[in-house]
């Protein structure tokens, strides 16, 4: 079974530029998450999708961050314009929609390391 795919793996941009990250979840996983992991901290949820609908985006800085999940499969996270404090690893995860505890098991991609200069 293929895991969660993310691209690019690394990105360096200047502040005020825009950037986009792509995620392809595990096949059949209905729930997709984007997390931000700042150096030295644990991941923090940015947005959660159930199929192609947003379940939780309460911690997404909506003035500069946006995300979409078209057709309930792939997802794109965008930052525009980027700030220095956006330097972090952006992790995508997915989970199934089983009606048991396994629905809470999240599988993570390798992440995209963003450096804003």
């Amino acid at each position, binding site marked *: 079974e293929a895991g969660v795919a993310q691209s690019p793996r690394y990105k360096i941009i200047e502040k005020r530029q825009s950037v986009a990250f792509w995620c392809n979840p595990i096949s059949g996983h209905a729930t997709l998450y984007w997390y931000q992991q700042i150096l030295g901290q*644990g991941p*923090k949820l940015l947005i959660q999708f159930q199929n192609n609908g947003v379940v939780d985006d309460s911690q997404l800085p909506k003035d500069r961050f946006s995300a979409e999940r078209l057709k309930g499969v792939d997802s794109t996270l965008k930052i525009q314009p980027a700030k220095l404090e956006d330097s972090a690893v952006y992790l995508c995860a997915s989970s199934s929609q089983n009606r048991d*505890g396994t629905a*809470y098991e999240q599988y993570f991609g390798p992440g995209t390391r963003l450096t804003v200069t």
Partner: protein
Amino acid sequence: AQSVTQPDIHITVSEGASLELRCNYSYGATPYLFWYVQSPGQGLQLLLKYFSGDTLVQGIKGFEAEFKRSQSSFNLRKPSVHWSDAAEYFCAVVGTGRRALTFGSGTRLQVQP
């Protein structure tokens, strides 16, 4: 709101020694608890999970964790550490009805030869 505390930022152990990483959570009911490991440049890999039942759970790579409701703890243990265990370890919690994980700040494990 749920939260997770990992009191040890950095731990160093000798290869072959035993290991215990601490995790305390705050949640009104019984949560679902997880331990993840993150090697440099890698994503997060699930080590083990607790949903219900036996409070001592076994995971991959020889790790185990014990859920203690009275102490709101879910400590990770390994009887004999290998050099390849050097990584960052994250404890996480999710409440029923909500899927997103709340992570602790992590414990970096260094293994001395």
